[in-house]
């Protein structure tokens, strides 16, 4: 009977069934595509990282404190092969060798491997063949990587001479001896192939020479040893849908290897499992964001299914009542509806999975493969994790959607068949619904309650952080974001009524007759559109919030970066520490200052205009001199007038002579402090403060010459007292004062020639293009002197570029969410119009023109969708501004107002179109039908 019920409903309610299945296909397909895209990208990322660090499951070496750098491959290999999970073991020798090819020679990476057993990494032959064997003349083959071949001018068939020296060992706790003599062996190979590699050498370049380990052993007289063993684990261990699990399973094999060989005599690394787990960590947040988007989108689909199935149930109430009379238990009616939803779900989810996976495989994977270039990554045909994730989310949404209609069916009264009038009698609640809609403060209250959840982040987030559970962090983060969105949507629901009234006024202004009818239906249809309105608000809120945040970031990046960085260029000396600029911008103890020659060279570089040298921060204690108040501070010294170097907006002097900054470097014993420190110490311009110096009882007194609100690039000068708590308030002094403070006077006066500049701030020479200058400077200094060169303009462009990429991602997500919202809008409008056939028939009978009817229903749809969209947009924009303004207030930076020019307008246009076409399609048949034909069907 259940089968008959489902078949009959599918046949008789084709539009609804198709609509439900279509919405599910789009919803699930989208989710599968997005999840599979993330999965594919994660694998690509993992593959790329593994390719860069070496595509090895595990590498076993001797530590450099071992007596010998070599291990006994013949003895260890069978022991390792006997371990569960170990698939193969391959010996290798990696080294830096001298390569001589004809007249040229140079250093290169050297990899000697067993071509039969070594499966790690991949080779792509550009010229010749990958043949490492010995020929009949006893000459062994070599494969030279492209960059080495280019640098040394190596061609196919060329002999190359390789000079190898075994690595030096050292004593534990001591450095390897310098200039120690090493036994060097030289041998010759023939170049049989030239090409590129992925993950073979463990280096992210194409430098190196690859030869067979046997020929290396023989020619260098190494015996049966290996410098390292590459342990390959069972590939099935990576089959888990959970990459973290895969990595840990591989690590379990690693533990077994370590247990077998011991802790002390060998060193172990696991590059590939590490890349897998790092990849998972990188993408867990993106995955969570997509899951949240999926939940919102499928929420609309769920609402659509709930609405349509509920309509089916209501239309068949009499039939169900008859079944109850015939003895059908309530459970049976419940099951009938649940089975119908399950059938719809099975078809929709099934097709959605197939289509989503196809889109991923045919579009996304191809795109990734194209981008992967040299790093061709094997991506699986089916992303099990993506499918599982999508099925779980959509299954949950479907189950929730089925609940209400199924319960309604189960609670069908027998009187529906006997006396429908009595069974459907209106209650007081129904009458209440007909009154003009009023603001429902319960929804607002619910919003306030839901908004409390993000506060949990303050408690739960650190807890999860302490435990280091990344997925939980992502869950809490996006859970908080989701509840922020839901809570704000509920809170802003109150705005929907004024929005509706505003839109009604607009409609009444344009078409008074249409407005007359629309107003009465919209303002009194309380129960009908609350849910869909909420879903539309949420669908509009999240993209508006994210896109406005991005727009604000783009608009404010320039100011933020300029205020923060202070100057166009910041140059750091060798060993400046890579990308972590903030950690080194203040100069750490480990960091070296600029050598004076290099500093002079830089300062006289024609690319630079004015420059100012900045010391590292010296942590001191500032006191009022009478022991009442003191604060930990950072003392920074400068060696020139910084004003020509700093952006004008990056300097704000709140008290004192603005020229004081210009004189600071040349006036010993003067200082500029921030408002926060001045307030805390209650010191003003002209007063003195005491700074504790490096020596015992060493105090330097400085006179305050100005109080700054901001001096970008030179420290923290905020007026907030928080700098006192964090001890980050800056005291800016001239370099002589800084030297005096940092110098222990016990050992004499400071040496004015001692290098003290840790950061050079520079303005570009007039008329130079900053981007070109950055490239030029990097070419001249970054490679030769290993200097760190930071360009504010470059970082602005980089952030803006990232924002633009983010915007594309957002546009795609928004489009997908909106498409699903369109389904929701269509379903609600369709059901609403279908349920008002009598009204349409009557209106036509009394002579309402078709275009008026269309106008009324289009108007209703417009008001309903646009009011919710506008509410969501307003809420999203305000939320973004709240965050930005509070951040601006916290950092004392101004906010440039900005609105997203793409996502929000696109969403509004899509909603207008969806409302229009939904009404157009849903009323199409009724507009064509005659009044009498409509009335006859009632």
């Amino acid at each position: 009977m259940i089968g008959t019920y489902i078949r009959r409903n599918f046949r008789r309610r084709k539009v609804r069934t198709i609509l439900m299945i279509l919405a599910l296909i789009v919803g699930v397909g989208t989710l599968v595509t997005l999840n599979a895209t993330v999965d594919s990208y994660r694998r690509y990322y993992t593959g790329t990282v593994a390719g860069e660090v070496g595509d090895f499951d595990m590498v076993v070496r001797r530590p450099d404190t071992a007596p010998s750098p070599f291990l006994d491959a013949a003895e260890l290999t069978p022991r390792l092969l006997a371990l569960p999970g170990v698939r193969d073991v391959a010996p290798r020798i990696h080294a830096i060798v001298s390569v001589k090819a004809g007249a040229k020679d140079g250093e290169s990476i050297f990899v000697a491997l067993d071509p039969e057993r070594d499966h790690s990494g991949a080779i792509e032959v550009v010229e010749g063949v990958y043949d490492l064997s010995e020929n009949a003349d006893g000459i062994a083959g070599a494969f030279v990587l492209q960059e080495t071949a280019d640098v040394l001018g190596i061609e196919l068939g060329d002999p190359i001479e390789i000079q190898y020296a075994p690595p030096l060992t050292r004593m534990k706790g001591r450095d390897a001896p310098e200039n120690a003599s090493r036994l060097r062996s030289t041998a010759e190979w023939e170049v049989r192939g030239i090409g590129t590699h992925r993950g073979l050498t463990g280096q992210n370049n194409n430098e190196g020479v690859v030869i067979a380990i046997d020929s290396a052993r023989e020619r260098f007289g190494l015996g049966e040893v290996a410098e390292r063993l590459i342990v390959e684990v069972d590939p099935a261990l990576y089959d888990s849908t959970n990459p973290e699990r895969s990595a840990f399973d591989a690590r379990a094999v690693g533990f077994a290897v370590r247990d077998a060989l011991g802790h002390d005599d060998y060193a172990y690394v696991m590059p590939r499992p590490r890349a897998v787990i790092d990849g998972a960590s990188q993408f867990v947040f993106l995955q969570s964001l997509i899951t949240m988007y999926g939940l919102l989108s499928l929420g609309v689909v769920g609402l659509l299914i709930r609405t349509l199935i509920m309509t089916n149930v209501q239309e068949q109430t009499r039939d169900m009542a008859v079944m109850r009379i015939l003895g059908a238990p309530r459970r049976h009616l419940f099951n009938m509806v649940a089975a119908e939803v399950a059938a719809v779900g099975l078809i929709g989810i099934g097709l959605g999975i197939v289509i989503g996976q196809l889109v991923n495989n045919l579009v996304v994977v191809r795109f990734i493969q194209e981008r992967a270039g040299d790093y061709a990554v094997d991506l699986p045909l089916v992303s099990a994790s993506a499918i599982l994730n999508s099925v779980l989310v959509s299954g949950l949404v479907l189950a929730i959607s089925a609940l209400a209609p199924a319960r309604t069916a189960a609670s069908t009264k027998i009187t529906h068949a006997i006396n429908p009038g009595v069974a459907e009698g209106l209650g007081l609640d129904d009458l209440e619904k007909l009154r003009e809609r009023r603001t429902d403060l319960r929804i607002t209250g619910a919003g306030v309650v839901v908004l409390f959840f993000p506060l949990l982040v303050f408690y739960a987030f650190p807890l999860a952080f302490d435990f280091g559970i990344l997925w939980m962090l992502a869950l809490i983060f996006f859970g908080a974001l989701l509840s922020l969105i839901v809570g704000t949507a509920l809170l802003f629901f109150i705005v929907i009524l004024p929005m509706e009234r505003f839109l009604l006024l607009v409609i009444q202004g344009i078409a008074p007759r249409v407005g007359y009818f629309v107003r009465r239906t919209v303002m009194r249809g309380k129960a009908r559109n609350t849910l869909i309105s909420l879903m539309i608000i949420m669908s509009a809120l999240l993209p508006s919030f994210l896109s406005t945040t991005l727009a604000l970031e783009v608009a404010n990046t320039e100011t933020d970066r300029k205020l923060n960085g202070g100057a166009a260029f910041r140059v750091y000396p060798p060993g400046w520490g890579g990308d972590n600029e903030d950690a080194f911008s203040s100069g750490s103890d480990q960091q070296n200052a600029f050598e004076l020659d290099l500093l002079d060279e830089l300062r006289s570089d024609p690319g630079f205009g004015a420059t100012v040298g900045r010391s590292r921060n010296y942590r001191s204690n500032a006191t009022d001199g009478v022991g009442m108040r003191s604060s930990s501070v950072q003392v920074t010294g400068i060696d020139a007038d910084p004003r020509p170097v700093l952006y004008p907006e990056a300097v704000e002097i709140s008290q004192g002579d603005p020229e004081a900054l210009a004189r600071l470097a040349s006036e010993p014993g003067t200082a500029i402090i921030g408002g926060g420190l001045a307030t805390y110490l209650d010191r003003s311009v002209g007063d003195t403060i005491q700074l504790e110096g490096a020596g015992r009882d060493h105090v330097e007194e400085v006179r305050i010459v100005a109080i700054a609100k901001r001096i970008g690039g030179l420290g923290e000068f905020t007026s907030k007292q928080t700098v006192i708590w964090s001890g980050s308030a800056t005291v800016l002094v001239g370099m002589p004062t800084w030297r005096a403070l940092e110098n222990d006077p016990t050992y004499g006066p400071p040496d004015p020639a001692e290098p003290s500049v840790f950061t050079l701030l520079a303005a570009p020479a007039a008329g130079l293009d900053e981007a070109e200058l950055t490239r030029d400077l990097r070419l001249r200094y970054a490679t030769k002197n290993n200097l760190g060169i930071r360009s504010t303009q470059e970082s602005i462009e980089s952030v803006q570029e990232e924002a633009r990429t983010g915007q594309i991602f957002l546009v795609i997500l928004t489009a997908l969410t909106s498409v699903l919202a369109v389904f929701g809008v269509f379903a609600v409008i369709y059901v609403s119009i279908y349920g008002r056939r009598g009204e349409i028939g009557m209106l036509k009978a009394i002579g309402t023109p078709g275009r008026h009817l269309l106008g009324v229903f289009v108007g209703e749809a417009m008001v309903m969708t646009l009011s919710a969209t506008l509410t969501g947009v307003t809420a999203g924009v305000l939320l973004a501004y709240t965050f930005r303004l509070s951040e601006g207030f916290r950092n004392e930076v101004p906010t440039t107002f900005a609105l997203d020019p793409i996502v929000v307008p696109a969403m509004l246009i899509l909603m207008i179109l969806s409302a229009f076409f939904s009404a157009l399609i849903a009323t199409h048949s009724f507009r064509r039908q005659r009044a009498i034909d409509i009335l006859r069907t009632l």
Partner: protein
Amino acid sequence: MSEAIIRIDNVHKSYLMGKEAVPALRGVSIDVQPGEMVCLMGPSGSGKTTLLNIVGGLDDPSRGHVTIAGHDIVAMSEEKLARLRLERIGFVFQTFNLLNNFTALENVEAPMVLLRKLGRKERRERTLELLAAVGLADRVEHYPSELSGGQQQRVAIARALANDPDILIGDEMTGDLDSQTGFEIMSLVRGLNQREGKTVVYVTHDPRMADYADYTVHMLDGKIVAKEADPVQALTAG
């Protein structure tokens, strides 16, 4: 005798039931003079509702001519026909067909809004007059669901009269009402017919309601079988 306000001339109407054409009217001809109150009676399937729908311009004949207030409605476009209905014909249905989201006042006002002949104030005044005329002066702000069946039908009658039509069409106006309320509604309609000279054509199953008509047209199998001023006599003859 003045010119007939409704002229039905040899009208045939067939409906397609599956692949078979089922005749509903077989050559019906009837003239209704202005100010007449005509009752259509007959068993189910006799064609009375079909005839009423054609008279009201809701349905078109398969063959024959229909003239309403001098307009040949068979040749009329749907939009023009709608306009004719809006200006000249009022409808009262068995199931009232009121707009549930509209109050009694708004239901009556709706056709005037559509016609746009009256300003807002005049419209409101006329609506209140009409509601007072049907005895609902104290129910103007009530929604249909807050009114009894009889009251809803009164609202429907007031709505049918909103644009001061020449013709009032009633399809089983009292079908969903108890006898007492039914008589009250028929008295109201008859009063309108007599006081304001409205032409009324209505269908009923109930012979007692036919008494209010000037004459009754009896139908059987798609044909007019009798047209009698005394329904009892007609029934005996049939």
